[in-house]
Every structure is written in C-alpha cells, then in structure tokens.
C-alpha cells in the first residue's frame, strides 16, 4: 500500500475494525547498555465514540502507550491500527501526517504556545492541518461549550490553568480528530477546574461522539470514562 493513511478509508467503509486495535504491543528503550521494556505486550481495543481511561502507577507504561497511540514514537514490536492505519508501517513523515489528521492531544501542562493568543493557538492547529475553513459553526458552538469564547484574545500567561486546559482541548478538537488523547488533563488543576475539564470531556464525548483516551492516575477522573483500563508493568492488567 503506497499510502497507508488512505487505506483507512477502505477499512472505515467496511466498519469492521475498532478505532484503536493494539495486539502484543511492545516498546523497548535502550538506555545506555540497558534495555528498558516499557511495554511488554499490550492488547487494547477502543471502539468509536468510546471514552476510555487508562490508569496505572508510574512506570506502568501508560505514557509510552500514549506516545505510540499518538504517533509520536513507533512500537518495537506488535501490531497497532488506528482508524484502519497500521502504525507499524508508517514512516516518520506518515506518522506526522497521522497526528495532523487523526489525533488531538491534551497534555497535563497544557502546552500552549506562550507567544500566541488562545485564538491563535487554535488557529495554528488548523493551519498546520491545512484546514483553511475558519468559519466552522460547530466549532464556534464548542468554544461556547468550553466557556472560553471571551478569553480567546488573551495569551496563556494571562489565563488560569483551567482556562488554558480548555483552550488546549479546543485546539485538540479543532480539526475533528478521530481520537482525543489526554495525558493527565487534570494533573495540574484544582478540584473545581478538574471537574469542569472532565465534565467538558464527557460532554464532547456525549454530544459529538468524540473518541477519548485519557491517561490518569486519579480514580475520580477515571470514573468519568465508560471504561477503565488498568496497566501494570507494561501490560494491561484489567479491562473488559
């Protein structure tokens, strides 16, 4: 297949595949002379419009799984398909394209560009994705839902953590990604803002059918998901 991303259309049409399908996924990092086995054979399936929480202690491999699912790094072994695309066959450039077209990221530290306003942070994600249609009524509705319409012309340093995280969520979904990957999205927030952000994620999932995969070590946050996947020592320890 010359264009692995184009292959997804065929599989989507068949409707035969889950949105995420990982089989015996392994990832080994070489640190000096030592091999560190971050993932030791992960099996995971996520259906469209699911809201899944991945929980586990530090070192359980959940961040590594996040990076592989987000196309930030390739697995060492195993199989993984996202929206019909076989990630193991992708080049660096194709993984970049996958991130642009199919993945939205929300990070613990928000990761907004400090030099740009909230609106420009969101617009930048559009531009990188080649999405020139800035008149998107659905997205404007989402901005209202996120409660940040009045803060769009502020830079991150002038916003609270909760507001920054809501802007980051807006940026993550502006291009209508297949998956929203959230890495400890409430890790830096107080209880009130954590509740707001988690409610928003649940709303986005419920209203738009946005598939969400959230990594957290907070059981209260995980409880917002449809399903909780437990990880330990580089393997899935629980789930369906």
């Amino acid at each position, binding site marked *: 297949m010359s264009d692995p991303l184009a292959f997804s259309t065929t599989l989507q049409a068949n409707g035969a595949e889950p949105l995420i399908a990982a089989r015996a996924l392994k990832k080994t990092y070489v640190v000096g002379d030592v091999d560190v086995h971050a993932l030791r054979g992960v099996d995971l399936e996520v259906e469209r419009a699911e809201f899944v929480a991945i929980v586990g202690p530090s070192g359980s491999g959940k961040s590594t799984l996040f*990076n592989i699912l*987000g196309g*930030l*790094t390739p697995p060492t072994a195993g199989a993984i398909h996202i929206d019909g695309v076989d990630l193991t066959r992708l080049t660096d*450039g194709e993984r*970049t*394209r996958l*991130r*642009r*077209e199919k*993945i939205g*990221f929300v*990070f613990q530290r928000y*990761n*907004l*560009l*400090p*030099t*740009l306003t909230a609106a*420009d942070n969101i*617009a*930048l*994600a*559009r*531009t*990188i*994705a080649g999405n020139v249609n800035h008149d998107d009524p659905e997205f404007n509705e989402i901005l209202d839902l996120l409660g940040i319409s009045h803060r769009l012309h502020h830079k991150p340093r002038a916003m609270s953590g909760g507001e920054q995280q809501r802007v980051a969520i807006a*940026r993550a979904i502006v291009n209508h990604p297949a998956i929203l990957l959230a890495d400890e999205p409430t890790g830096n927030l107080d209880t009130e803002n954590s509740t707001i952000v988690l409610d928003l994620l649940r709303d986005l999932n419920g209203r738009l059918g946005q598939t969400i995969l959230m990594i957290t070590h907070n059981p209260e946050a995980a409880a917002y998901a449809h399903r909780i996947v437990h990880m330990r020592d580089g393997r899935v320890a629980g789930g369906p």
Partner: protein
Amino acid sequence: MLNKLVVENLRHRPVRTALTVLAIGLQVTMILTLVGLSRGMVQASVNRTRGIGADIMVRPAGSALIGLSSAPMSEKYLAVIEKLPHVAVATGTVIHAVGGLDTITGIDYEKFVEMSGGVRFLEGGPFRSEREVIIDDYYSRQRNLHPGDTTSLSNVEWKVAGVMESGKLARVFVPIRVLQDLTANTGKLSVIYVKADDPKNVPGLLEALKKKFPDNPIYSMEEFLSQLTVNNIPGLNAFITVIVALSVIFGFLVVFLAMYTAVLERTREIGILKALGATPGYVLNILVRETVVLALVGTFAGILFTFGTRAVIMNRYPASLTQVIVPDWWPIALAIALAAAVAGTAYPGIKAARQDAIEALAYE
C-alpha cells in the same frame, strides 16, 4: 498564521531580537562605512585635484599613477615646460606625508593662485613668513586651528596664516622652498601641473610634453581623474573583500548563536508543533523566516547607522576622512546579511527540525 507566529516569537524575546538586529546592523554598517569611506575619500581627492585648475600633470619617471611620492623630479623640468608653446602657467608641488593619510603640500603660492583662479580665504590670508601654513576649512575644523595658532607638522612648528575654502588640491599648504629644504629635497618636485592657454591646445601640448619627457608619466587631468577610482587604488579592493568576509563570519556567528539559543529555549514549543503535526520543513520554515526578518530589519538598521557613522566621521575627522552614502551597496549588504544569517540558521534549524517530539515535550 505562520508569519504571525514568526513575528510573535521575535516580539516575545525583545532583548535577544534587539541584540541580533543590532549585531546584523553593525555588520552591515561595517561594510557600508568602509565602502563609503573608500569612495568618499577618492571622490574628495578627485574634487580637490580638479580644483587646482590644471590641464596636464607631469609625474616623476617611474612613479605609479596613484601614490604618495617625495620629490624625485628636478625643478629644471619646470623651467623647460614654462618655455613650451601654449603653456599659460606651470607650477610644481612637493608632497610630504605626515602620518596616516595626511600630507602637507609645498606650493609656489603666486603660481598656485594663478593656476587655480584664486583662493578664497575664510580667515586670515596668504603666507607672510617662511614657517607659516595655510589650511582649508575642513582641516581647521578637525584640528580647531585658526590664524595665529601654531601647529606641529613633521616635527616643525608652523603658524597658521589663513584658512581657505576647501577644494584646491590639498588641505595643508606650506611654502615650497621651506618644505623642499626641510625634507632634503631642495630643487626637487613631486608633481608639475600645467595649464594650457586654450583648452583646444591641450592635446597638442600633451603630445609635446610626452615627446619632451618620454620617461615621465604625463596625463591630461581628465585622464588622470578618470583613473582615480577605488578599483585603481592598489590593495583597496582586497581590503574591502577582507572586511566583507570578516563581516560575513561575524554575522554568521551572531545569528548562529542567537538561533541556537532560540532553538534550545524553544525545545518544548518545537515539541508542541510536532505533536500538532508540524513537519520538519514547517519547523525549519519558521526559523528561516525569523532569520530573514532579523536580517531585513538588521540591514535597515545598518543603513541608518551608516548615516550616523558619516555624521560622526564628518564631524570629528572632516579633513582626514570623507564618507559618502552608497545606496548601490544596500542590496549587496542585504544579500551578504541574508546569506550570513541563513547560513547561521542552517545548523540550529536542522537540529530543531530533527528534534524528537517526545524528548522535546519532556524538555524543562
């Protein structure tokens, strides 16, 4: 959006942006000032030489077209030339270097006035005794000298007799006999200037002089002045090339350092861009655009600084140095600044483009 990001990045670090612009500006100023000085001084020399009013100049045998000479030509030449047909006036000068590019010129005052069509004194007047000097207004301003003041030239104390309007051959004049004796060149001349009785007789007179003194370089003034250019001054072009090369290295290092620091500082931001799906080319594009903006603004600043250096030079060294503004070199300076800046961005840019997204996002 990309341009907005570039501008905001530059605005976000105002001190580094300002320092980089300043450094590129200085690089451009260095080039433009050097070229402006070269051209200005040559042009000033042309104007002053033209101001003597001669039609022909006779130089000592074996002398180069351009160069400071002592006085290796006998005064007897002058006597012979004065007797040739169609010679209205002929006068010899002695040129003596007194340090740096400054010289004093020994003249026969009456002949000099006759040839140049008169001297306009702004202060004082002609020589009244042997150890007197006439200076032009530029020299007067640079050294703050006025009639009655004394100045030391070539280890001799001279009294200022007058300040004349500039534009006549040189800036500092002393009586020719005194300079000949002081420099052990009694009876010798550096250059002989000849004025024809009628401009139409100049070619014939030129031929006659060349026939009479076949070993001496003899030029019509127009021919001599047309060859008095930056290109014909030995070593000057090589000097300019060296300075330009040094400025390119200087610009390269400044931009390299600035962009390398920028890439390190923005490692996390680069990680964010990559997570959003930015390609290596996109990241490189941002840095190159930032560099181009810095080079453009820096060049503009450098051009403005050049007006400043000219003002300072013309104020502090009006007699020794003349700087002109050289607009035809502005695009060249821009090209040099751009080339150095883009070269300086290459390594940091590629480093940024190849940055691993996960490592970049984890960068503190």
